[in-house]
């Protein structure tokens, strides 16, 4: 079933799927643990923040996603009932996941601090007790720079005392953007920032195919950092090999489509068909001739 995103809450919220693990979670009455909610914070391109929540519970000793769980998300204060600081109410999808953007109405609260706490609250339901989960993140930024010698530098800073301050000891991954993931630029899986908040990696994936002009997209990202959440930035560099898709795909072949049969086949088939059916038509003509003769004979007699 690929009906994976379900609308909710005036089009602001949406559910995503990824990471499927199990499906028939709620089918039978078996041993169920308490509902576990986890929150992740994402910052894309230092611009758009959003939250992803996952609901799961232990069934027969294994974590299974819980779909259809209604989760209220708050910013900073748990203002239950009053609606202040409410980011959104989301319902988890089949994979137990849901995401929410930060609505414009929370501008004041968002600007008031550089550290934010996200609170996820669920009410008591038939299956589960109420839960309350929190996640605190500090406002941070990741940048990516490249030099001609094919070195990639990523800088990680956080917003402290009204200025951007370098952070040491943050694990950053650097890679080339590819379908479904990133291919690391060098041998190292990840890099840790120095006191200047910088990591430096050498681009070793020479000869990677890029786009038509040889561009590839570099990605620097922080994943699930306890203090800062997940951040990600991209940069396009001309370090790839020019790639031109061969457009001779739709040639004539035995596996080609209806209108792409090989010429030799078309020629053979049609010459045989025309030859044989020409003969048949000629034979029908002969029958008609016999008929004609018969009619003439009738007239004579």
């Amino acid at each position: 079933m690929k009906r994976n995103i379900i609308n909710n809450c005036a089009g602001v919220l949406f559910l995503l799927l990824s990471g499927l693990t199990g499906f028939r979670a709620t089918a039978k009455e078996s041993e169920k643990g308490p509902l576990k909610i986890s929150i992740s914070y994402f910052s894309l391109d230092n611009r758009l923040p959003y939250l992803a929540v996952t609901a799961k519970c232990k069934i027969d000793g294994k974590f299974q996603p819980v779909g259809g769980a209604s989760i209220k998300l708050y910013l900073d204060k748990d203002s239950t009932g009053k609606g202040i600081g409410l980011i959104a109410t989301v319902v988890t999808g089949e994979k137990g996941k849901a995401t929410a953007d930060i609505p414009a109405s929370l501008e004041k609260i968002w600007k008031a601090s550089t550290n934010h706490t996200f609170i996820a609250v669920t009410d008591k339901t038939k299956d589960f007790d109420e839960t309350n989960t929190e996640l605190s993140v500090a406002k941070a930024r990741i940048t990516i720079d490249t030099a001609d010698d094919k070195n990639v530098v990523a800088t990680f800073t956080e917003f402290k005392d009204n200025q951007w301050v370098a952070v040491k000891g943050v694990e950053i991954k650097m890679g080339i953007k590819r379908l479904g993931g990133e291919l690391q630029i060098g041998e190292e899986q990840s890099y840790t920032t120095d006191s200047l908040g910088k990591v430096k990696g050498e681009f070793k994936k020479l000869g990677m195919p890029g786009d038509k002009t040889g561009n590839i997209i570099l990605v620097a990202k922080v994943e699930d950092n306890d203090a800062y959440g997940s951040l990600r930035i991209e940069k396009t560099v001309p370090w790839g090999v020019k790639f031109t898709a061969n457009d001779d795909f739709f040639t004539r072949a035995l596996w080609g489509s209806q209108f792409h049969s090989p010429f030799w086949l078309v020629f053979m088939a049609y010459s045989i068909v025309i030859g044989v059916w020409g003969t048949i038509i000629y034979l029908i003509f002969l029958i008609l001739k016999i008929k004609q003769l018969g009619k003439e004979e009738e007239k004579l007699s």
Partner: protein
Amino acid sequence: MDINNTSRKEFLAAMVTSGLVLAGCSSKKTPFEAGADELVKPSGEKVKLLSVDGEVIEVDKAFLKPVPQLPAITNSEERKGIPGKKFVMVIDLSRCKNLRKCQQACNHMHQVHSDLNWLKVYPMNEGEHTAPYWQPTTCMHCDEPPCVKVCPVDATFKRQDGIVLIDSDRCIGCRFCMAACPYSIRVFNWEKPDTVSEELCGQPYSCETSVPQKKGTVGKCDFCPDMARKNELPHCVVACPNGTFFYGDLNEDSVTNGAETFRFSDLIKDKAGYQLMDDLGTKPSVYYLPPAARNFPFEKGMEIDKG
């Protein structure tokens, strides 16, 4: 605000359709972002959201709006495929222990009839004194597909991105393709699939999602091009807890199982990748890495195997 409007749209669009795989605000479009962009048309209705810096930004609703099915790609587009792509899969036999999570995910997402499996895990043993191993087998998406050669009505076809798909709205159910496929991966809907949900039943068939499956037509692994369009991985790849399946684009020279990403050419070279029954001249798009240095003993998989 307006300066960045285009790029914002772009990254939002990509984000919406790409789940947790985050896309950025690069000015250069990658094929996937371009694909995503084409799929979603701005509605004109804006939604106000907060940026990291606390600015209020306006985003077109259409880019956030959930899309229950893939937005209408015409049948002729589905038949052409995604330009510039050549999808491949690498299956690392040393990692498989016949957990069948791939199979469950695949069956579930494609609503395959409960008797059938699009993805099969075979207990393989070549000779008397050779070691057995588990071999997950998907459609090979051959470059010389014997099934496509024999189809009388173009119901199964090869696309420029290498994927072989089935148009269940056209299939006449002659099953010649099943006889022609040496990998026996094609299945037939002998009856109305018992797993198709009511809501999906009436929906139009899409070659890319392969749902809803229809009585009297052939079905098979479709390499999940609908997921690829969203820059996501096929269901089997995501479902495997051992990272057995790697999926990627040969034109990007990279494959990934979600957690690890390898340069395709390096992986095949380092681990001596091979193709299944390549002696038949089918030129498969699926590569296998031999079951050397196994993560699990073969017997581990016997617990789950029911034949």
